[in-house]
């Protein structure tokens, strides 16, 4: 207790250092109900176990490979939803926008014969423009985002039908790069392992540098052993995943792309001024405004991001299906994307949530959907079971969160 770091001087703090301290910390946080994504992961493990017992194909490598690929499109849309929810708004039109974007892509690429990159770029830009318009309507007129995006839902569905026009459904050529990317391109094994090692090394390195900097500034910091343990754990998990998926087809590039987007969003949200502003606006817009934050710009930026991600998701969905048609993006795309964000711990009231939540949430949803699909149930039973399992997955999370002394809507 001799030389206390600057941030550990209050005598009411229970000091914890080293590995043992880190463990005590986790237990303390568990009691307090503040476990981050751990409960969601536990919920996921529960579901996986149940589904695996019911049908041994579920956890087979081949099925998990499908699962990763099927998660990507809606997962990317959910990533955008996380951003909008963080500022306490909503976007109901992501389904329509994704459908429209797929349609525009198909028309430009197949119909007009433009190069694929140009068609993709056009679709993405269109998504961004839609988001920008939402932002303007929201900032200028103060129309609730629910209504703006509901109007968008209808309008872009109409536009999607219009764009597809007399064809109704447009095939994307199976041998085009885009379709290959979404269906057949897998990361070679050696590269996957390399990625895993890079991630682990990077985690250790950045942690170590950060700890050194903190120690120099006289602040408490994680010990090297804790950092090393964390990196080794990550390496083990990643290597296992790569190995297991590698039993069949491996890790799809589309999934890697999704994970990369999650990482980028995680960085933007947690390590930039913009990210801080997003959380601040979601927590208390008036406080954010008084702190000199350009609240309107923040709103516009998240709407743009969300629509853009929706457009990207739509392109990938079209690529995966190798077709754009009238019902793309309709049905439960909206609900699934929002539900993925919420299941991943994003609050509908703003100010709480992470990019990783979208990843976890969509995996929960796709697991349920894929697992029940394998069971070959009657539609009616399948719907009922899906609802029940979904509830189950979230109850685990909520119960753990429950014990936290809640403040209002915290």
């Amino acid at each position, binding site marked *: 207790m001799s030389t206390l770091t*600057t*941030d550990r001087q*209050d005598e*009411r*703090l229970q000091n914890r250092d080293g590995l043992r301290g880190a463990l005590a910390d986790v237990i303390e946080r568990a009691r307090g109900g503040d476990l981050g994504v751990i409960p969601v992961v536990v919920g996921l493990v529960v579901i996986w176990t149940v589904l695996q017992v019911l049908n041994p194909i579920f956890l087979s490598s081949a099925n998990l490979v499908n699962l990763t690929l099927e998660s990507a499109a809606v997962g990317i849309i959910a990533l955008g939803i996380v951003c909008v929810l963080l500022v306490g708004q909503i976007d109901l039109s992501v389904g329509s926008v994704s459908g429209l974007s797929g349609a525009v892509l198909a028309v430009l690429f197949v119909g007009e014969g433009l190069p694929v990159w140009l068609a993709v770029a056009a679709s993405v830009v269109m998504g961004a423009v839609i988001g920008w318009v939402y932002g303007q309507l929201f900032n200028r007129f103060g129309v609730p985002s629910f209504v703006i995006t509901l109007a968008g839902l209808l309008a872009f569905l109409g536009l999607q039908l219009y764009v597809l026009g007399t064809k109704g459904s447009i095939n994307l050529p199976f041998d085009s790069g885009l379709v290959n990317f979404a269906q057949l391109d897998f990361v070679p094994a050696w590269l996957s392992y390399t990625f895993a090692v890079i991630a682990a090394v990077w985690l250790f390195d950045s942690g170590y540098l*950060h700890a050194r*900097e*903190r120690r120099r*500034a*006289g*602040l408490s910091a994680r010990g090297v052993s804790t950092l090393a343990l964390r990196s080794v754990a990550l390496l083990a998990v990643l290597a296992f995943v790569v190995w297991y998926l590698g039993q069949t087809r491996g890790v799809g590039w589309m999934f890697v792309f999704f994970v990369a987007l999650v990482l980028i969003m995680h960085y933007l949200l947690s*390590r*930039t*001024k*913009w990210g*801080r*502003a997003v*959380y*601040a606006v*979601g*927590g*208390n817009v*008036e*406080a*954010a*405004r*008084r*702190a*000199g*934050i*350009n609240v309107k710009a923040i709103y516009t930026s998240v709407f743009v991001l969300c629509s853009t991600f929706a457009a990207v998701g739509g392109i990938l969905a079209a690529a995966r299906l190798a077709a754009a048609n009238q019902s793309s993006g309709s049905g439960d795309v909206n609900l699934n994307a929002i539900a993925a964000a919420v299941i991943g711990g994003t609050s509908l009231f703003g*100010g*709480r949530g992470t990019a990783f939540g979208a990843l976890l949430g969509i995996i929960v949803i796709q697991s349920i959907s894929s697992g029940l699909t394998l069971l070959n149930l009657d539609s009616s039973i399948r719907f009922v079971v899906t609802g029940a399992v979904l509830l189950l997955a979230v109850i685990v999370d909520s119960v753990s969160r429950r014990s936290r002394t809640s*403040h209002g809507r*915290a």
Partner: protein
Amino acid sequence: MDVLTLRGISKTFGAVAALTGIDLDVAAGQVVAVVGDNGAGKSTLVKILSGVHPPDSGTITFEGNEVEIPTPAAAHKLGIATVFQDLALCENLNVIQNLFLGQEIRPLRLNDVAMETRSWELLRQLSAKIPSVRVPVAALSGGQRQTVAIARSLLGDPKIIILDEPTAALGVAQTAEVLNLVERLRENGLGVIMISHNMADVKAVADTVAVLRLGRNNGVFDVSEVTTEDIIAAITGATDNAVSRRAQKGTPS
């Protein structure tokens, strides 16, 4: 020379005239106390100066130029830093994040360490009793929050600092530190507007006292030439008031 001059500021909320024709002058290196009864319009005046509400009429002159302050960002740019009575912190962010909100160090790759170090410095300076700066503000006590809000206003390089009842929730030691701070700010040539209901504090640090009553100017006094009783009489609009009656009642016992 006056840094800040207000002339004829008025503001109406619905059917309530919160401010009517307010004048105020603040010079560099001067501490102006604004006092008044509850609902007299003090905070409304503060909000107008910091860009939260636009005034209905009247002019604001800052460093000799007539200015408009349509948004809080504009006030920040002019160099007006404010501690609001309702604090305006984001409950979901932690102490460091709140302190540096809108003025983070290294916007594209936040410098946690520098921000945390600076936070501890500021808080120590105010004698804050905050166990950890990494807890969300929702978990802080009233006084701890107020300290955070005050520390916030010292970041950046303001020319005018407006403190709306800064010591209301503070403990005795923290109050003393804030009064010390106000004196330091004055010495550094900043203009300070301080709102307070505590006459002892006002008399201790203010140079002049401006009294508001029911949304109107009710006199500006030089602190050295005015008694507490006179100020209270100006605030309540009568020499016979609850305070004086209580004082009398107290005397015989």
